[in-house]
């Protein structure tokens, strides 16, 4: 130990030739060497590696399908390592006229292919893009429906949908506040448990939905990893925000955030989740896979009303202003409107998967923050009444979730 300590000191003191350089220069030297090495490697054509074996690997992911009368438009992204040339397009076993993708599509590049096809509503279409090597990249349109045009009326409809499934149910759920103010503390713990149960199902749901979406679109941006990255990012961001708010308020609650902060965090978490839910609704509507029936709206209302309860549970014993309550409700509900817009107008599998991950991470963070409030007077972390609450919450969210499948 002695000897090693001495060595460290010696090293630190040792006046080397490099030691005379400023710290920033020492930091840059490895970067410079990396640049030189890469440059030399490229200039020499990757000595010793030779040509890549085998035929080019051609991968195209269809990111967006737009149907207009007589035209099917595909936006594709090159997922693979090599450039892809779309030479011909086959729709339902027939060569068709098309425009776009005149040049080879490079790695991660996109192109829009406009196919002339007198498609019929309600029928299925299988599109095969025939590449220069003779490979085919297939894309299926299970049910052809004209893509809604994104005008003011459309955005209005999506906003209305967002209000129906996000804002109104949450506002209704928050009306439980007077009730939970009157119930005994043990019951309140059960309600908090219920909230955690509700959120747990939402987190599981968001993660699975995100993973499903990630598997469908372009894999070039990480696929399923995007969901996990989104989750970690939002978890860490919200943790940081929580600490920051707690620090500013100098709230003395040792266990974590104050009741008000908790309610805000829950609202943010649920809001991020509803953003994802809105995206799912909007994209499903835009591809005609969603019937805007009363059943759907009723289902979502029941489903999301429980989210309102989750927001007000931590503030049972504080007296928030009406404006503050409204703000919490809007934070949780309005993202559904934005989600519906994004989902309907600019749907992208990778982005949606990432946002679902963000929603899941936010909810997990909220659960972690809420957990201490379950503790009873005897110091038990999970008293039976809280466990019963959690299980009831999970059952409730699971049950109402069956009413709506997007």
């Amino acid at each position, binding site marked *: 130990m002695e000897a090693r300590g001495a060595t460290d000191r010696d090293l630190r003191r040792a006046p080397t030739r490099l030691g005379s350089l400023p710290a920033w220069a020492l930091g840059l030297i490895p970067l410079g060497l990396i640049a030189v090495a890469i440059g030399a490697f490229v200039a020499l054509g990757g000595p010793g590696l030779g040509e890549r074996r085998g035929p080019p690997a051609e991968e195209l992911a269809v990111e967006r399908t737009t149907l207009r009368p*007589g*035209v099917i438009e595909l936006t594709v992204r090159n997922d693979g390592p090599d450039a892809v*040339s779309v*030479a*011909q*397009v*086959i729709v339902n*076993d*027939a*060569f068709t*006229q*098309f*425009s776009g993708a005149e040049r080879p599509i490079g790695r991660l590049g996109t192109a829009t292919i*406009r196919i*002339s*096809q*007198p498609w019929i509503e309600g029928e299925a279409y299988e599109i*095969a893009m*025939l*590449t*220069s*090597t*003779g*490979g*085919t990249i297939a894309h299926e349109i299970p049910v052809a429906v004209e893509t809604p045009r994104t005008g003011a009326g459309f955005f209005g409809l999506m906003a209305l949908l967002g209000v129906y499934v996000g804002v109104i149910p949450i506002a209704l759920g928050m009306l439980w506040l007077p009730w939970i103010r009157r119930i005994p503390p043990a019951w309140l713990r059960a309600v908090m448990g219920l909230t955690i149960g509700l959120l747990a199902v939402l987190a599981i749901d968001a993660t699975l939905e995100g993973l499903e979406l990630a598997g469908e679109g372009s894999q070039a941006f990480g696929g399923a990893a995007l969901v996990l990255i989104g989750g970690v990012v939002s978890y860490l961001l919200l943790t940081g925000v929580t600490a920051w708010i707690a620090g500013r308020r100098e709230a003395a609650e040792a266990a974590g955030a104050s009741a008000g902060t908790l309610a805000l965090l829950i609202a943010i978490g649920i809001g991020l989740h509803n953003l994802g839910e809105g995206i799912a609704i909007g994209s499903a509507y835009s591809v005609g896979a969603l019937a805007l029936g009363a059943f759907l709206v009723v289902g979502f209302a029941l489903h999301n009303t429980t989210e309102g309860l989750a927001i007000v549970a931590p503030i049972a014993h504080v007296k928030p202003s009406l404006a503050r309550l409204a703000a919490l409700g809007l934070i949780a509900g309005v993202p559904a409107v934005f989600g519906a817009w994004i989902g309907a107008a600019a749907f992208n599998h990778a982005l949606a998967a990432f946002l679902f991950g963000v929603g899941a991470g936010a909810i997990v963070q909220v659960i972690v923050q809420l957990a201490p409030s379950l503790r009873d007077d005897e110091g038990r972390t999970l008293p039976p009444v809280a466990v019963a609450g959690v299980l009831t919450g999970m059952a409730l969210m699971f049950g109402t979730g069956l009413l709506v499948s997007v």
Partner: protein
Amino acid sequence: MLGTAAVLHSSVPHRHPWDADAQAADRHAGHAGDAVAGHADFRDGRTVDHRANGFDPHALLRDFDWGKTTRLPNGRVLREWELTAVEKEIEVAPGVRFAAWTYNGRVPGPTLRCREGERLRIVFANASSHPHTIHFHGIHPAEMDGVPGVGAGEIAPGGRTTYEFEALPAGLHLYHCHVRPLAEHIAKGLYGAFIVDHDKARPEADELVMVMNGFDTNFDRANEVYAANTIPFAYMDRPIRAARNELVRVYLVNVLEYDLVNSFHLHGNLFDYFPTGTRTEPSELTDTVMLCQGQRGILEWRFPYAGRFMFHAHQSEFTELGWQGMFEVS
């Protein structure tokens, strides 16, 4: 709109580098934009590079290879050909390359033509990297059958052999490679038509050869493109010229792999059909015939009217994937 494809087609001017016709010098305007006008075709009416391929389906139509003849001591005619198996990348649809296996660098291989009873000698050289044979349909000794394990058997890369037999019977036949895996060796392009003329010649006619084939470009054992004489839509882009009231004779051979049947349908007319071309009396007057792989027949008709008449497989899928064409009768 689609139902009048043939009519619309005639009103759409074409532009093709190989087309010497002045009338076809204009832009292929009908295919741009959203309008689904005119007949099925490749993107913007583009064609493959026939020059790079080394063969033009229009030239193949009337290209009969009579070989070289000498007299044997007994006075009989000895007819000889040289066929070489070579690997060649060809463009089977505009912008789509296919690694073909060919006889003499073309798909289908040369149309070998001879007369009944002649002595035939086919010198086969294998200049490719896989073993191949030539298996002829017709009557011949077992060792001349061109199948593995009999006679010369498989001809290894760099090897050669000579197939020799009598030209029997008269009719329309075919030849193809018979090495395993069979589907692969045939589908990649090792086939051709083999015509043995009757002693008593058929009447004078405008004679055409059509070898119905297709290509599995993505190796899923289903064809992506279909054609007569390899290049899809080739006879849509440039119709086949025919003279009014002149006898047209089509030597039709089906070599299509992966699909159970193929067919030929003629518009605005009916034809006399001579199955396998072995008889000189037609078996029926029809406008559609169905052939399995290896089946072939001779078709004869005259066009009483001028104008453009379609011909195609009467399987809409094959038609829309390239196997269709036009006769331009004047």
